[in-house]
């Protein structure tokens, strides 16, 4: 494998003040902003262009606000536990790190389970991505958006969970030899996780409340 030493892996660069990994994840998040931005913009475009009475509100479309609110709180809490797991490492407490990271993963899984219940509830009522809103005179593509946007978001949550599991189970070995570098990895994963949480905080009102 490569034994070249590439600088700024663990020490921050004087110009940017961050490590290469951290700069990299910020750039990745910038592209994700464009991704979800395009999703939101498309939703707004079609919704604004829809004729009166053809586009349901979240409640009219059968979305459950209490469950959505619960899921929002789950994700926000998981962001807090994520920060705590990183802080534990910085304070030299790998035991606390494991507990908090485990909590983050568990909460992420809980979010997905709840989402799974929401989806299966819809399917049970005969509502699929291709279904028009039953209450409308003209069809609308609300459900297409609902499933696609929340589905993409859920995929991002799932991938984040996978990364966190890897860090907790296999990545932890790096803590023994290079604690700073491992803490950096947790911080990077944390940034991604916060972003996924932030997207949901916009998604939830857009789909469920408006």
């Amino acid at each position, binding site marked *: 494998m490569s034994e070249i030493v590439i600088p700024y892996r663990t020490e921050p660069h004087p110009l940017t003040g961050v490590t290469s990994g951290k700069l990299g994840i910020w750039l990745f998040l910038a592209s994700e902003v464009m991704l979800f931005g395009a999703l939101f913009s498309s939703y707004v475009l079609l919704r604004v262009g829809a004729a009166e009475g053809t586009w349901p509100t979240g409640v009219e479309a059968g979305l459950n606000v209490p469950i959505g609110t619960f899921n929002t709180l789950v994700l926000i809490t998981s962001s807090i536990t994520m920060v705590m797991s990183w802080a534990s490492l910085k304070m030299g407490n790998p035991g606390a790190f494991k507990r908090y990271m485990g909590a983050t993963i568990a909460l992420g899984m809980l979010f997905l389970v709840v989402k799974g219940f929401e989806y299966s509830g819809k399917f049970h009522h005969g509502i699929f991505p291709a279904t028009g809103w039953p209450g409308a005179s003209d069809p609308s593509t609300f459900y297409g958006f609902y*499933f696609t946007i929340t589905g993409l978001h859920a995929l991002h949550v799932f991938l984040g969970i996978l990364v966190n599991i890897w860090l907790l189970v296999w990545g932890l070995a790096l803590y023994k030899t290079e604690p700073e570098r491992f803490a950096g990895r947790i911080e990077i994963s944390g940034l991604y996780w916060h972003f996924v949480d932030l997207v949901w905080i916009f998604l939830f009102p857009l789909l469920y409340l408006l």
Partner: protein
Amino acid sequence: MSESHAKLGFLRSYVFSTDHKVIGIQYGITALLFLFFGLCLMMMMRWQLAYPGEAIPIIGGLLGETLVDDGAMLPSFYNSLGAMHGTIMVFMGIVPLAVGAFGNYIVPLQIGAPDMAFPRLNMASYQAFVIGGLVMLSSFFLPGGAASSGWTSYAPLSVTATTGQTFWLIGMIFLIASSLLGAINFIVTIIHLRAEGLTFFRLPFFIWSQLVTAFLLLLAFPPLQVAAIFQLMDRLADTSFFMPTGLVSGGDPVAAVGGGSPLLWQHLFWFLAHPEVYVLILPGMGIVAEVIANNSRKPLWGYRPMVYSLLFLGFMSFCVWAHHMYMTGMGTTMSTFFQITTMIISIPSVIILTCLVISLWGASIRFPVPMLFALAFLPMFGIGGLTGLPLGLAAPDAHFHDTYYVIGHFHYVVAPGTIFAMFAGIYHWYPKVTGRQMNVPLGKLHFWLSFVFMNGIFMPMMFEGMAGVSRRLFDPTVYEIGAAVHGLTTMSSWSAWLLALSQIPFIINFFMSMRKKERAEENPWQATTLEWATSTPPPHGNFVEPPVVYSGPYEYSVPGASSDFSPQFIKQES
């Protein structure tokens, strides 16, 4: 800093390597193969255009009955060839060559870095590119053929098209992922891994062009990723992101819920595809700048204005996309906005081109083969850029929209524009990669033949477009206008076939020169930039000692210096 490492096996050294030089070469070979394949697709199309309804020689007998009828091309095959030619050339040819190959190989060397910031991510980018490319190519073998709705894949046509379109979408998702990962790598590398003393305004213009290109890829591709997902949902899950209510297809109502908008696809697509065209040209401009500075033996004129223009161009490229949509029924307010931004964006392009041209004033110009290509780039890109003016204004565009004028315009920019820049780069950096020089007479032959035939293909198209001949027509002679200018069509076709033959001297040169016994000098062009500060080929880790930079990138013919070039990495006695 290179340390001796355990001997890696063949696979680890050449197939699954994380060394940017190996990855650069992998990208280069793969991209050149795809470019050649895309050229072959076009050559078949040109037969049908020049001799409509006639059996294709030799190949016609070999193709199956879904593609040809008694050897003569079928419209379905023609449309597939058209869509795939564009897709392959843009996404599997030029971008991987300009960014993946030249960028990967040269950028770390030119900034004095041991490798890219994320070598394993780099390998993943290449692998995603290969997967995407294979998915695209495999679509040719599907029963319904490859995608056939244009490289632009407008809905609803693309939504109701055959399975080849699904493969196109999946292939695009991989290709986009490859570019996104690569873009992150380039930006972090250029910002973080510059050698000591290499401040931003001492960077070679090539590095600046790669930096801006990376930002364009990073920020412009995601909306197309979204659009591809939406179109996949429309195709596979019967959603209606792009499908309006009441559609019929072949007389029967389409099974979609409706309520969608075909224009949404266009907005999302062009939001990427306009910055994408700057991705296609900027690395080429960077290469041309390097070659011109080196072969005129003086600093580039207007380096700072060129850099500021590059940054401004990158920013503006996000603001002009709807000039591809003037004819969709948009209101005058929106069309005014985009006409203004389009006019504004032409200014930094003019500045960059003008600075390159003025760099020739007061120079001492040598004419090795790379310089021939770099010099030809200037008027060819000039024609391409100038012909963008009538297209960028909505009123003349009413005549030129979707005609051969558009095809001529963008091909002038990418073909005798970017591809000539790519050739310049290959001839220029060949000694760096292989340690040998390419044969000069073969190179000059390649240049002159290519130059003549490139113009032979695309200049007639400008006149065809002026006459009003639409593009994407399986047989333009169906229209009186098309029949009247059929001579121009035939001229383009013959020029295309002769252009393909003209690449033979290049291919021979490329492979034979590698095996030459006579090695080139370490710095055969007497260049000033960092990639020439190390041995050929560079070792693992690039530099034995990390280089230090003391001056700007183009210190040629410095008054009072002992030679006519003062490399960046050597401290000059003042």
